[in-house]
């Protein structure tokens, strides 16, 4: 994985943007992009550089906005970072380029209420069927109350 080459092709593809590459500990490199360019950037990574391995998509609540990280890996780590508005966040899906992102996007969708445009199925992945509590990883989330335990009477059952 050649970070300079990747950065160069990103600059060529998005001449209007001022792109920088920053480093995180343990061999990870980060490029920040606006949300509407992520799909095109991933396409460049997959098609030009053959980077197919998306480790995961991390989503987090940064108070004023939501942040998404696309963690790629091919010998070295490369992370695409983007931010989304707090209200009604929408971002195009990358599942058409990387089918392996299906579950990652579903998870981010249910945990942070981010809509992935074009995703085939955004049903809850981990949360229960009748979940009514909102997105658990948003900061304003409150754990919904537990309605009382089921009264299975042992004597009656026996």
């Amino acid at each position, binding site marked *: 994985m050649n970070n300079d080459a990747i950065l160069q092709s990103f600059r060529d593809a998005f001449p209007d943007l001022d792109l920088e590459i920053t480093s*995180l*500990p*343990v*061999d*990870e490199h980060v490029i920040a992009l606006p949300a509407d360019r992520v799909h095109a950037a991933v396409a460049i990574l997959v098609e030009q550089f053959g980077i*197919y*391995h*998306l*480790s*995961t998509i*991390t989503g*987090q609540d940064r108070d004023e906005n939501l942040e998404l*990280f696309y*963690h790629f*890996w091919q*010998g*070295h*780590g490369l*992370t695409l970072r983007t931010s989304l508005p707090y209200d009604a966040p929408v971002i195009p899906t990358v599942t058409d380029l*990387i*089918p*392996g*992102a*299906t*579950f*990652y996007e579903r998870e981010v969708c249910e*945990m942070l209420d981010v809509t992935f445009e074009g995703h085939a199925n955004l049903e*809850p*992945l*981990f*949360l*229960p069927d009748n979940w009514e509590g909102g997105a*658990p*990883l948003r900061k304003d*989330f409150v754990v919904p109350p537990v309605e009382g335990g089921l009264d299975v009477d042992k004597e009656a059952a026996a």
Partner: protein
Amino acid sequence: MTKVTIPIGPQHPLLKEPLSFLVTVEGERVVDSKMRLGYVHRGIERLCQQRTYVQNVHLMERVCGICSHVHTTTYCQGVEALLGLEVPERGLYLRTLLCELERIHSHLLWLGVLAKNMGFDTIFMYAWRYREIALDIMESLSGGRVSHAVNIIGGVRIDMDAAQVEAVLGQLDELDTHITTLLGVIEHEKTFRVRTQNVGLLSPEQVRRYCVVGPVARASDVDVDLRRDAPYSIYDRLDFKVITHADGDVWARTVVRLLECVESTKLCRQILASLPDGPTSTRAPRKVPAGEVVSRSEAPRGEVIYYIRSNGKDKPARVKVRTPTLPSLLALYDQLRDVNVADISVVLSGVDLCIACADR
């Protein structure tokens, strides 16, 4: 042909853990499958944000009971990187020793589960019996059979003396002979081969499409192993082979995993032979400076990735865990298409599911 929908799970002898699979079959062919996760979703990522870094080590240990040590290793590695902490050499060596022992334990456990699911109880019994040796070693080192609570931020809390090294070397020899025996059995036992060969096929293209990692990817001839490709801890100083296989079926995965066990025993011997002197841990401050880190390591099932963000307090602002089972689950849809009903059990156990990992 009428279509019948068979529910597999959440309570099913095939899966120790609840995972709901709805398999639609036509005759004895599977035509469609649906999956429902979340039966063991405990919300660990959210719980992490409410607990301190030290408490989280214990929580991370319980992401998964089978590969508990590798989760704490990845987590501690990340926090140590945030702190800029230099972990003593001896601590790193002991940490890695347990990682490799855990790989042996996990792979043998998997072989047993696979054998049980295809009605070969004898291999199940013997694989789990030999696995006890690995558990014994880990118990003698840490006091715990499955959860070890070995890692602390800044090193490990255990140490071993010369007598223990000697004893562990002896147990490793024993383990080696037994693994070789098992390899011989699965290579020569015809019914085992008949049930596993050409079942659950994954091509290298599919592995790349679904971002599958670990032994499943390696058994499909995708040569990837974080221990070699992105060495963490002390793996750059150790000499080992990355096992790959070209077949891409459950049989190949069995061979890959067992050969990896052999490699792991070799790694353990190297570690014990070059164990440096000195302390095993350093003191870590309670608060972690603001920053972000991505920590990766190779669990028995493949790549584990942790993303940790600190905002300078004693509690992390975000911990993201991605375990290797999640992509493997995605690849199951393709593997299950058009298989025989009886092969569902082999396919499902073939990828080494760990739902507790996937659900968190």
